[in-house]
């Protein structure tokens, strides 16, 4: 029996209400006394060979017969009125098949994509589809736009003055923070300024659209095929089944590719107008200016404590530079929920500017919020003259502090202990010196969601060769989720993960799966995969029981064999499946809801050791210890690579990455890799990764997400380590030689 349930899911801190069709599920829980192989055993990615050999097909690789190339006319001004635009001249360029302008009314999520009042440098005005890129470039020139520049705001001071709010300001209080600050033994005040970090996916945003009478197909570099389908259906008022979204492989997204995006809708509109397939691939400059960024923010904290270390009051304010729009992410969540504190006052002001819209970036809000708040906590520890780690242990909370709900599981204290041991925290002051190169060690805690939830479905087919086909409606953001999904099924079927054929990334061939965001893909899909695999297993054992005249309950599946529990029988699974002929065992699984009244979080602690050359201002990270509590670890190899990637991206935020906007023209001046620096291999420190691997007892399969947690504490740990090394706190990231030398001057 199936029933429709209403459930809540937390996506990047936002509670979403969803309906899910949940089927009865008799899949037994994992037995705690025995490791459910192959879970916990390192498994190379099933897509690894395709990726490294070049066989993997990315969206920008798609070439369809008759396909056109698209380009977008973008404003060079931070704000302007377009007083003249020669669409007819562009249409007259030979080889041009479609020209769309502001009057064509192409909408993305309700807002016009093409505008004659461009609101930021890079805003789209018109779009061209032509037989070649060169023809499209000619048509762009033929448009001969004339601009009337308008006043604009691109910095925080101007935005504060203008006070245009994106969405709503956020205010939340519990207790009486002002009163508690007045009576606290110790009060610290501190402020931090976080930079705009740009996602910079190596495969830029791109789409290939093919609009035909019988349906619209869009190949998209996306982290949400189903979200993309729905965006297209809404944009063109289509039935969702008219739309098919495909994503085989993608070259990074980090939050900025939720759905098919503006580029997907634009490519579809051009394809409809041209009656030909259209490919739109953004340039690196477009990637850097129009596809999103982690919001810069100014944080101001006042923390009050008793002399014994009890955190009595948190007053936290943040002014967030949203650009021209975007979602306000929970920048003050760490201040709200990381520690026990009775009196908390939070205020967030999301400010509009004449810059591209902001977009989710791996642990949006929480990473930069942790960077700032965990440094304020270190300043409180200094004021109290206590060890920063002790202060955190002392103010640990066993329940969610804002609403007092219990956690499904929380092992943060163990993370602190393990991280301290692995990093040599107790001896950290021995690192310090007065020499030219100074060393220091700092820590930060990690708090995030990641419990996953419905709706998520899986289908498994098993035929005569015992090579199961696992079909799931997700995409691989690059996390290795497909390999983990195969491992989940492999555990039930006793068939090695590399014998699976996994089908993914196509809304027309798999039922709904979650978007790859909020660290929820695996935690959402795994229970569905396991349920489907369990049903296949049951049917296979039924057949085997009949064949071997043994009760199915006395049989099990492992190592590609059917084995009797008394070990007298061991036959290849194909011994049974070969009798299937052209028949298949087919089963479905679905994801049930998480428990009501409980909070699902992941936790962790990272400790960074840094070195600084005080004469040149160069700093580098020598070692990062990362200990995280993320529930069951399915594939330790994939999990470790997630941690390494997160740490490295956190190092980028701390040391190198920052979008720079010219105050005079409002234009981004480092919209490319010449001046926007991502970390490279030479910046990778020793990374010691340890995951507690403790299944969450209250979640199906015990799995929680790991995509975002590892980036969250890295910058804060580096900031605290730098302060430990230098005796001076840097209030602005990234910690470039300029900022370090200016702080030391």
């Amino acid at each position: 029996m199936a029933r429709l349930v209403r459930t809540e899911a937390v996506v990047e801190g936002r509670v979403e209400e969803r309906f899910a069709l949940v089927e009865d599920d008799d899949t037994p829980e994992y037995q705690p006394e025995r490791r459910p192989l192959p879970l916990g055993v390192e498994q190379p990615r099933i897509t690894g060979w395709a990726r490294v050999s070049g066989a993997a097909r990315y969206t920008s690789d798609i070439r369809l017969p008759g396909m056109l190339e698209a380009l977008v006319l973008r404003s060079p001004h931070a704000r302007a009125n377009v007083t003249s635009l020669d669409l007819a001249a562009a249409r007259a360029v030979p080889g041009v098949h479609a020209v769309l302008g502001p009057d064509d009314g192409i909408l993305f999520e309700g807002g016009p994509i093409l505008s004659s009042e461009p609101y930021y440098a890079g805003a789209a005005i018109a779009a061209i589809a032509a037989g070649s890129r060169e023809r499209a470039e000619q048509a762009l020139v033929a448009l001969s736009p004339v601009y009337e520049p308008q006043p604009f705001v691109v910095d925080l001071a101007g935005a504060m003055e203008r006070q245009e709010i994106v969405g709503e300001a956020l205010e939340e209080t519990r207790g009486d923070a002002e009163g508690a600050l007045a009576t606290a033994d110790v009060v610290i005040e501190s402020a931090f300024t976080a930079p705009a970090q740009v996602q910079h996916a190596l495969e830029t945003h791109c789409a290939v659209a093919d609009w035909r009478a019988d349906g619209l197909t869009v190949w998209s570099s996306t982290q949400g095929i189903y979200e993309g389908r729905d965006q297209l259906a809404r944009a063109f008022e289509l039935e969702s089944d008219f739309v098919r979204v495909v994503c085989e492989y993608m070259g990074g997204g980090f939050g900025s590719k939720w759905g098919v995006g503006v580029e997907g809708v634009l490519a579809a509109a051009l394809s409809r107008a041209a009656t030909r397939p259209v490919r739109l691939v953004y340039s690196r400059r477009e990637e850097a200016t129009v596809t999103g960024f982690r919001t810069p923010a100014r944080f101001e904290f006042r923390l009050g404590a008793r002399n014994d270390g009890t955190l009595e009051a948190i007053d936290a304010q943040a002014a967030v530079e949203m650009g021209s729009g975007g979602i306000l992410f929970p920048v003050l969540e760490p201040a709200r929920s990381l520690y026990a504190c009775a009196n908390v006052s939070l205020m967030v002001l999301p400010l509009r500017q004449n810059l591209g819209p902001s977009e989710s970036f791996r642990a949006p809000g929480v990473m930069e919020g942790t960077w700032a708040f965990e440094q304020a906590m270190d300043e409180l520890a200094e004021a109290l003259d206590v060890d920063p780690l002790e202060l955190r242990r002392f103010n640990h909370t066993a329940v969610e502090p804002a609403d007092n709900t219990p956690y499904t599981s929380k092992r943060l204290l163990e993370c602190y202990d393990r991280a301290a041991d692995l990093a040599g925290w107790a001896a950290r002051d021995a690192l310090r010196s007065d020499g030219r190169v100074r060393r220091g060690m700092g820590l930060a805690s990690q708090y995030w969601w990641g419990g996953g939830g419905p709706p998520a479905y899986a289908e498994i087919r098993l035929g005569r060769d015992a090579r199961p086909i696992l079909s799931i409606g997700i995409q691989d953001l690059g996390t290795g989720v497909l390999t983990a999904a195969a491992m989940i099924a492999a555990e039930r079927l006793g068939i090695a993960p590399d014998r699976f054929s996994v089908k993914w990334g196509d809304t027309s061939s798999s039922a709904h799966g979650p978007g790859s965001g909020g660290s929820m893909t695996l935690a959402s899909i795994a229970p569905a995969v396991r349920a489907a695999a369990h049903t296949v297993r049951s049917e296979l054992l039924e057949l085997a029981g009949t064949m071997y005249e043994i009760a199915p309950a006395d049989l099990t599946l492992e190592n590609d064999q059917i084995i009797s529990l008394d070990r007298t029988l061991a036959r290849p699974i194909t011994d049974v499946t070969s009798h299937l002929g052209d028949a298949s065992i087919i089963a479905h699984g679905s994801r049930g809801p998480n428990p009501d009244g409980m909070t699902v979080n992941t936790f962790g602690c990272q400790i960074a050791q840094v070195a600084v050359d005080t004469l040149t201002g160069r700093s580098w990270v020598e070692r990062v210890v990362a200990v995280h509590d993320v529930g069951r670890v399915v594939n330790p190899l994939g999990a470790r690579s997630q941690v390494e990637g997160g740490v490295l991206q956190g190092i980028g935020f701390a040391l190198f990455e920052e979008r720079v906007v010219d105050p005079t023209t409002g234009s981004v001046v480092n919209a490319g890799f010449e001046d926007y620096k991502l970390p490279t291999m030479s910046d990778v420190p020793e990374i010691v990764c340890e995951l507690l691997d403790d299944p969450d007892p209250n979640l199906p399969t015990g799995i929680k997400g790991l995509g975002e947690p590892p980036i969250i504490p890295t910058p804060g740990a580096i900031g605290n380590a730098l302060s430990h090394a230098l005796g001076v706190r840097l209030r602005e990231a990234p910690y470039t030689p300029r900022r370090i030398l200016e702080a030391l001057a």
Partner: protein
Amino acid sequence: VIPVGRLGFPESVREASEQLQEHGACAMGGGTDLLTQVQRGIASPSVIVDLRGAGLDSLEHENGALRVGAGVRVADLAADPIVRERFGVLFEAAEHVGTRQLREMGTVGGNLCQRVRCWYFRHPDLTCWLRGGEDCYAQLGDHRKHGLEPGDCISVASSDLACALLALEAQVSTNLRERMPLADLYRNPSAEWRSNLALASGEFVTLVTVPRTPDISAYERLGERGESSFALVGVAAARFGERIAMAAIGVSNTPRALAPGNPLEGLPGLPMTGWKRTALAALAADATTRVTRAPES
């Protein structure tokens, strides 16, 4: 983006000179700088003359002198065992150029003739003073990575090889001039001459000569990350007997000779670049220490 009209593939210096007579023609080595300018629409040559087949790719040693053809790839310069052993500053500088892929493509001549670093100069939507416009946007706006020397333009020269070769007292030859001091390849831009290169129309570098081997030499450099970035500041030093020659990049429009005793002389800094003085002083001291330590052999 302005499409490139034509390409020329001369097979000799003479042929190259002829092709570069055309108005708007531009010489190209590996293309690693020029093509990025073309892509951004900040350079629009009528014809690109590819010098790689013009016979400029010899690397020779003779009586302690080093002769490097302008077409020698940066990677090949770095791979030369004698350069590595005897001209340490040049080897280290070559190893720091760009990325491995860029070193495989880029040539010595092209590296010396790369245009200045300035995110306004290279911005596709802006026409700065150096490109013939009215304003030096950098001085009005964000010049945190710019030079230490006030002027009409505050962009910085960033050729690691030029820095090393200046300290090595190298000479350059072009298709029009023989063995001039390397410093003469550069000039500060002016209202009438909006370029930091002192090359006449149709002129291109053919050969770099280092007349003698230094006793010891060293390159010190501050980048934006562990590898693969332009130098924020680079300092080259070479010792010839008692005399030390020093040069820096990242501090002014041209690669600049430094007075070993007073490296900050003439470099007062600008509102956002004072920090570079500290770094320059440190790198100059480090380079000096390395070249005064002991003779190399």
